[in-house]
C-alpha cells in the first residue's frame, strides 16, 4: 500500500460511516465487558436484525470511553446531531436505545444519559486517547478514517530520521513510564549509536497496582501504538520491534496481535513499509507476572527468555540493549504521543502543558472518588480539579485524605497540597512521582501506616532478589511496619525505619529498590502523627488497625527502673 491508497482507504471508510443514519458505539474494554457489555452488543445486533436496519444502523465495539465505574457505556451518533452517551446500559435499555435512535425520527431515551457538559468530559484534553471510544480497535479502516498512519507516511516520505528525532526533542515529550526522561534525546542517542542492528521496545508491562492506562491504550487503539513504534524504528534505524504485554492482559495481547497481522498484510508494517525502503517487523512478547520486568534492563532480560533480573547501567540500553545491540525502550503511552506530534507539529504539542512538562498525561483515577475511570488531562492541571471536578469528589460525605500517585514507587499527596499543578517537577518536590499514572484517592478511612505496609509488602514480594539492599531491606521495612500496625513498635523502630529507607534508596541496583521506600517516606513526611499515634498511644486514627501485640520489654530501662526501686527499698529499710 502507498500513501495515496492509504488516503483512499480513509475516505472510503468515512463515506461508509456517513451513509449510516445512526451509529451505536458500545465500549468493549475490560471494565465494561465485566459489567455486561457483551449482552448489550448482542441485544443491539438482535434488534437491528429483527427490524431489518442493517443498511441504516451500524454497531461498533469500541475501546474505553472513560468513566469505567459507570459502564457499560454506549455512545449514539446520529448524523447532524450531538452525540449522546448512556451509562449503565442493560440489555432492556439497549433495546429501547436502539429503537428510539434508529427510528425515522430519532429520539433520545430520557434515562441514564451522561450530560455532555459534565466536568468529567469538559476538563479533559484528549491527544493520546483521541480515538479511544470512537473507533473499532479490530478494524484498521476505522483507524485510517481518523487519519491513522498518515504520520508514518509523512515521516517516511518527507522527513529524515534526524528530523524526526529533532521534532520529538522540540515537542518536549518526556517518557510516560514514570521517570520522565526526555524522549527525543533518548531517540537521538539510539540513532547515533553504532550498530548494524537496532531494536525498538514498547514497554506494556504495567505492574503498578491501580494503573491501567497502557492496557486501555493497547486495547482501544492498538494501531496508534504500532504507528508510534514504526516511526521510532524509522528514526533510530531499527527494523525490529517488540511489544511486551503483561500476562494479565489477554484482550490487549489479542487485539495487538490482530492489529499487527492486518497492518502487515496491508503493507503498513513488515517489509517495505508504505512502498518505501524501510522495513519494520513487530513481535509480541507476553509477560509472566513480575513487577520488576517494568524496569528496562529486567524487561530486556525477560524478552531474551531469562529471569527478569535487572543489570547495572551504564551501559544504557541505548548503547547496549537486547543481545548487545542499541535498543530504544519507551512506554506504550509515549509511543501513543508520537503520531499526533508528527501530524500537528512540535510547536502545537509544546503549547500544551507546563514549561517543563509538555503535553497531556493519562491517569487512571481510582479509589474513593465518585466517578472512577480513565482520564487524559493537560499537564499542570491541579490535583483538586482532577479529584473534585473530574472525579466528582469523595462519595458518602467523607473527607479527602490523600492521593497516591505512581503506585509502589510513588507517594501520597495530602489535602494541603491539593492545589499543586500536576507535572513531573511539582510531584517529585512533594516526594511523589508521576509514575505511569495511577492515581488512587483515599478518604479518612485509610490508615497511612497500613497503606505504606501494603506497598512495602508488594515490593517485598516483587523484589527480584538480585541485590541485597532491596531483597533484605524490603523485608525489614515490612516487618517494622507490621510491628507499627499491630502495636508492638517502639520509638527506636521509627528511627530505624527512616535510616533503612535512605540506605535502600541510595544503594539499590534498579528502580524498584531505589523507589520502594517512597510511599513510606512520603507518608512519614505528611502523616507522621499517625505513626506516632500507633507507637505512643497504640491507637489507629483511622480505626483500621487492631493492636494484637505489645511492645517488647526494654531490658535496660527495666533494669534501671528495678535498680532504682531496689535503692529506694534499701534506703527505706
Amino acid at each position, binding site marked *: 500500500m502507498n500513501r495515496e491508497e492509504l488516503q483512499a482507504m480513509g475516505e472510503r471508510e468515512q463515506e461508509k460511516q456517513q451513509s449510516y443514519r445512526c451509529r451505536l458505539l458500545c465500549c468493549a474494554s*475490560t*471494565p465494561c*465487558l*465485566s*459489567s455486561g457489555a457483551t449482552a448489550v452488543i448482542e441485544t443491539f445486533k438482535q434488534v437491528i436484525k429483527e427490524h431489518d436496519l442493517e443498511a441504516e444502523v451500524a454497531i461498533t465495539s469500541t475501546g474505553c470511553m472513560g*468513566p*469505567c*465505574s459507570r*459502564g457499560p457505556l454506549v455512545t449514539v451518533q446520529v448524523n447532524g446531531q450531538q452525540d449522546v452517551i448512556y451509562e449503565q446500559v442493560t440489555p432492556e435499555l439497549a433495546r429501547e436505545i436502539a429503537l428510539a435512535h434508529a427510528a425515522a425520527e430519532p429520539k433520545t431515551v430520557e434515562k441514564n444519559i451522561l450530560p455532555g457538559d459534565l466536568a468529567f468530559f469538559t476538563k479533559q484534553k484528549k491527544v493520546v486517547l483521541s480515538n479511544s471510544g470512537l473507533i473499532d480497535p479490530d478494524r484498521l479502516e476505522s483507524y485510517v478514517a481518523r487519519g491513522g498512519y498518515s504520520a508514518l507516511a509523512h515521516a517516511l516520505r518527507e522527513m529524515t530520521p534526524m528530523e524526526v528525532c529533532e521534532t520529538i526533542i522540540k515537542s518536549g515529550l518526556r517518557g510516560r513510564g514514570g521517570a520522565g526522561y526526555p524522549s527525543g534525546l533518548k531517540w537521538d542517542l539510539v540513532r547515533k549509536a553504532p550498530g548494524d542492528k537496532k531494536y525498538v521496545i514498547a514497554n506494556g508491562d*504495567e*505492574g*503498578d*497496582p*491501580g*494503573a*491501567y492506562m497502557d*492496557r486501555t491504550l493497547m486495547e482501544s487503539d492498538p494501531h496508534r501504538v504500532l504507528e508510534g513504534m514504526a516511526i521510532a524504528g524509522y528514526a533510530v534505524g531499527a527494523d525490529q520491534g517488540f511489544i511486551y504485554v503483561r*500476562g*494479565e*492482559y*489477554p484482550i490487549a495481547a489479542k487485539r495487538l496481535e490482530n492489529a499487527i497481522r492486518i497492518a502487515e498484510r496491508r503493507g503498513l508494517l513488515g517489509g517495505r513499509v508504505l512502498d518505501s525502503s524501510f522495513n519494520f517487523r513487530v513481535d509480541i*512478547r*507476553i*509477560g*509472566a*507476572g*513480575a*513487577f520488576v520486568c517494568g524496569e528496562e534492563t529486567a524487561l530486556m532480560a*525477560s*524478552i*531474551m*527468555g*531469562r*529471569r*527478569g*533480573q535487572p543489570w547495572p547501567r551504564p551501559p544504557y540500553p541505548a548503547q547496549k540493549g537486547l*543481545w548487545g545491540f542499541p535498543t530504544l525502550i519507551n512506554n506504550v503511552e509515549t509511543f501513543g504521543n508520537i503520531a499526533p506530534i508528527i501530524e500537528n507539529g512540535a510547536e502545537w504539542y509544546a503549547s500544551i502543558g507546563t514549561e517543563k512538562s509538555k503535553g497531556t498525561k493519562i491517569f*487512571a483515577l*481510582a*479509589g*474513593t472518588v465518585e466517578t*472512577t*475511570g480513565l482520564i487524559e488531562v493537560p499537564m499542570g492541571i491541579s490535583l483538586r480539579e482532577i479529584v473534585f471536578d473530574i472525579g466528582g469528589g469523595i462519595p458518602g460525605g467523607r473527607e479527602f485524605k490523600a492521593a*497516591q500517585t505512581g*503506585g509502589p514507587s510513588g507517594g501520597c499527596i495530602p489535602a494541603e497540597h491539593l492545589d499543586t499543578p500536576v507535572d513531573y517537577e511539582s510531584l517529585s518536590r512533594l516526594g511523589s512521582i508521576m509514575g505511569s499514572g*495511577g492515581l*488512587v484517592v*483515599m478518604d479518612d478511612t*485509610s490508615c497511612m501506616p497500613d*497503606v505504606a505496609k*501494603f*506497598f512495602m509488602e*508488594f515490593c517485598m514480594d*516483587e523484589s*527480584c532478589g538480585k541485590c541485597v539492599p532491596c531483597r533484605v531491606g524490603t523485608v525489614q521495612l515490612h516487618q517494622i511496619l507490621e510491628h507499627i500496625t499491630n502495636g508492638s513498635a517502639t520509638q527506636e523502630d521509627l528511627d530505624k525505619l527512616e535510616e533503612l529507607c535512605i540506605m535502600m534508596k541510595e544503594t539499590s541496583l534498579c528502580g524498584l529498590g531505589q523507589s520502594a521506600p517512597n510511599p513510606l517516606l512520603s507518608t512519614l513526611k505528611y502523616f507522621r502523627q499517625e505513626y506516632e499515634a500507633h507507637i505512643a498511644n497504640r491507637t489507629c486514627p483511622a480505626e483500621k488497625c487492631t493492636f494484637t501485640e505489645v511492645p517488647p520489654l526494654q531490658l535496660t530501662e527495666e533494669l534501671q527502673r528495678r535498680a532504682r526501686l531496689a535503692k529506694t527499698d534499701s534506703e527505706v529499710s
Partner: protein
Amino acid sequence: MATTSKHKTAPAKMETVHTDPRYKLVDRTLKRLHYQQDALIEVLHTAQEAFGFLNDDLMIYIARALKLPQSWVYGVATFYHFFSLEPQGEHTCVVCMGTACYVKRSAEIVATIQKEFGIAPGETTPDGKLSLATARCLGSCGLAPVLVIDDEVLGKETPEGTVQRIKEVITTTPDTGAATDVAVAQPQEEHQS
C-alpha cells in the same frame, strides 16, 4: 541466540517417548519458534496452557528441547508468578489486591474466604475443588474491589456476596473427577488472572 539445524533433529526423537497428546502443543510452539533458547518463556506459556501447571517431566522435556540446563528452566519457571508448579483446583477464585481494591477493603474478602474454606491464598482445598489466589492488579480499578471466579469478572464485591457466589459455583457444576479435564480446563482461568 543459538539456532542451528542440529537442534531440530533432537526433539523429534523425544516426541515418540511421550504419548500424551498435549506434548504436541508444546512441540508445535517449539517448532514455530525454531527451538531458540530465548523463546523459553513462550514455550512455558504454551506448556502451562496445555497442562494447567508445569511438572518436572515437562520442564525436563523443554530443557532438552531447547538445550538449556534444567536448572535454568526451573529458575525461569519459579521466577515468574504466572507459572505454577502445583496442580490447580477445579475452580479458581482470584482476588485483586491492587491499591484501589485494597483501599476498598479487598483484604477482608480474602480473610472471609480463608475462614470459610480453610485455604490461604495460593492454596487449594483438599478435595481439589477450589484454589484461592490473589492478583497484583487486574486493571479494573473502576469496579474495585474486583475478583475473578473461573472466567467471570465480578466487580464491587462484598465478603458475604463472594462466599455465596463461590458456593454456588462449586455446588452447581457436576464433579468431573478426571484430573486431565481439570488441567485442560485450567488455561482460560489462568489467563484471566
